[in-house]
Structures are given as structure tokens and as C-alpha cells.
């Protein structure tokens, strides 16, 4: 894929010489979901476990009692179990893939952000942090994210998941138009 191999100056970008087509990666994720369903009996998903991780992380700030008596965390207590280790696995796999392909790179501000919005690290961090807060709130409110709803739910033809996909792409398009016109 010519598009993926080089940027304008021929220098490496963070994903510059990964030459898998998106279709190959998508097929791989599809086949992996068969294994997740049939062997692990647990569809691919991220934010259910992340919400439980948040409970553990909140203990120093909210106190162990508040976390222990919270309705949400009582139903979904933290443990180093399948869901949480799955998150560790995601990071391990991406790390190995980045190292093997020579694309590991410390990045503070991504290229598209530098070109269209600005080079300020703190501004990028502020948007990333606030975006992180609301993306997780939204994911927990909806019951899943792009993995749990988008892929695992979408492939089951779940009504909730296709509603999720349609709405999140729509608001994403609107937010993107405002952000890249520098109106927000």
C-alpha cells in the first residue's frame, strides 16, 4: 500500500512502514472474535474492565468505603481477572508489534494536530484528558465502546450496538468539523 509506506519527506512517521491493508487487520480481528466467543466465552471489549480498574484507582481519593459501598463497583469489583488482563494483553501486543516493525516512537502531539490545530503540548494534553473523561463516561452509559459495542455487538447484529455506531459516528463528525475549524 503506497499510502502507508512513506510520508511527504520520506521520513518515518509513527505508522510509516506498516504495510498491512486494513482489510487484513480487520479479517484478523474478525477471526480473533470467533476465538473470543468460542474459547474464552467472553467477547472482545475494553471499558467494562476499565470501569472496574477505575474503582481500584479511586480508592486513595474516595476512600475504600466509598468504593466498596458504591452500587456500580459492588456489582463489578476489581480483580486481576480475564477482563483486566485482556487490557494488559492489548498493551503487550501493541508494544511487541511496534518494536518488531520499528515504529515505536514517543509522541507528544500527533502530526494531524500539529498541522491543523497547533503544536502546544499542553493544549493537546488538555483535549486528550477531557476527551478521555467523556469517552469513558459515554462508553459506560452506552454499555460498551468501539470494541464491545462496535465490533463484538455489531457482529452479533445487536440493535443497541448498531444504534451506538450510528450515533457515535454522527456526533464524531460534528465534533471534528468544529474542532478542525478551530471553533472549539
Amino acid at each position: 500500500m503506497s499510502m502507508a509506506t512513506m510520508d511527504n519527506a520520506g521520513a518515518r512517521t509513527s505508522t510509516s512502514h506498516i504495510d498491512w491493508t486494513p482489510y487484513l487487520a480487520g479479517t484478523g480481528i474478525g477471526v480473533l472474535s470467533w476465538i473470543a466467543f468460542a474459547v474464552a466465552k467472553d467477547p472482545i471489549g475494553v471499558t467494562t474492565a476499565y470501569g472496574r480498574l477505575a474503582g481500584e484507582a479511586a480508592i486513595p481519593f474516595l476512600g475504600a468505603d466509598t468504593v466498596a459501598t458504591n452500587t456500580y463497583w459492588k456489582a463489578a469489583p476489581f480483580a486481576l481477572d480475564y477482563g483486566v488482563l485482556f487490557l494488559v494483553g492489548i498493551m503487550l501486543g501493541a508494544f511487541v508489534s511496534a518494536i518488531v516493525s520499528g515504529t515505536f516512537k514517543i509522541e507528544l502531539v500527533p502530526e494531524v494536530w500539529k498541522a491543523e490545530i497547533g503544536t502546544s503540548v499542553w493544549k493537546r494534553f488538555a483535549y486528550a484528558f477531557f476527551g478521555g473523561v467523556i469517552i469513558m463516561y459515554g462508553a459506560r452509559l452506552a454499555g460498551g465502546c468501539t470494541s464491545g459495542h462496535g465490533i463484538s455487538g455489531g457482529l452479533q447484529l445487536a440493535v443497541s450496538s448498531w444504534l451506538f455506531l450510528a450515533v457515535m459516528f454522527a456526533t464524531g463528525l460534528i465534533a471534528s468539523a468544529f474542532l478542525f475549524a478551530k471553533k472549539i
Partner: protein
Amino acid sequence: MTDVFAPGSIILALLIGAAFGALLHRGRVTSCNVIENQFRLKDYTVLKVMLTAIIVGGVGVMFLADPNLVKYAVKDTNLLGVALGAGIFGVGMVFYGYCPGTGLAAIATGSVHALVGALGMIVGGVLFALSFDWVKANILTVGAYGKIRLPDITGISSPVWFAGLALVAIVFFVWAERQQNR
């Protein structure tokens, strides 16, 4: 350590998680540029990866479900909760530049801003837990239809749905490739 390949096995979690993380990276969706440019309609990689995964995954799971080798795990259709949550999620994805899974994967490829967003995700998870009682009583009850699938509400069978989806996807992929080669 009982059985490595038994449900709940942490070795299995690490293996499937690692394969997922590597595939996200190979699909280039761990790049903030790729995700932002999807919402700017300048790069269709995200949709190509997702649609392919949904169709390949869905057809396989459909065949496995018939002889009861897999059980569907459909999420609840709480119309208001899903719509509101998804609406907030789309905005968050554009601000963060990642979704939760690709954000975690991106941290491991050296993205420091992905790590900053992941700390924000902890805060978001805490805020949700603290507001959960109210949300459950007032939002998750609106339009609650339970675990329903498109074939249930349309009367159109799963194979027909996937044939239609595949057709739409192929037309879209051809169009997207032409756009990109311009």
C-alpha cells in the same frame, strides 16, 4: 493454573488481548492521525477495519451459534442510555483522538497523549460509578427493550443481513479506495 484455554484463563486473556493489540497496531488504528482523519473523511482506514471485522467475525459467530458452539452476548437496548452515551462517546473520540482500546494500545507504541487520555478515562469511569444510581433510575429505564438483535425486529434473517452488509461494504471499499488514489 488449571486449563490455559478454559474461559476465564488469564493466559488466554493475555494471548487474545495481545493478538487484538497487535492487530489494532497493524491496522494502523493506534495512530491518532488515522482516527482524526476518519472523522475528517480524509482516511477511511477505521471504517475499513471495523466493517471487515464485523462481517468476518459475524459470519463465523453465526455459523458457530447454530450448533450452539457459541452463545450470543448481546448488550441491552436502553435507547436513551445508548444514544446519549454514544453521542458523548463520539465527541470524546474526536477530542481524545483514540477510542478506549486503541488508546491503550497507542500508549504501548509511545503515545504520551494517549496515556494522558487514559488517566482521563479513569476519571470518567469514577464519575460514572458515582452517578450510577441516578443514571440507572432515570436514564437506563427509558426505551429499555432488552437484548434484541436486528433479525428479531426486522424479521430478516442473519444470513440475509450479512449478505446485505457485505454488499454495502464492498461498494463502500471500492469507493474509498478510489477516493484515496486520487
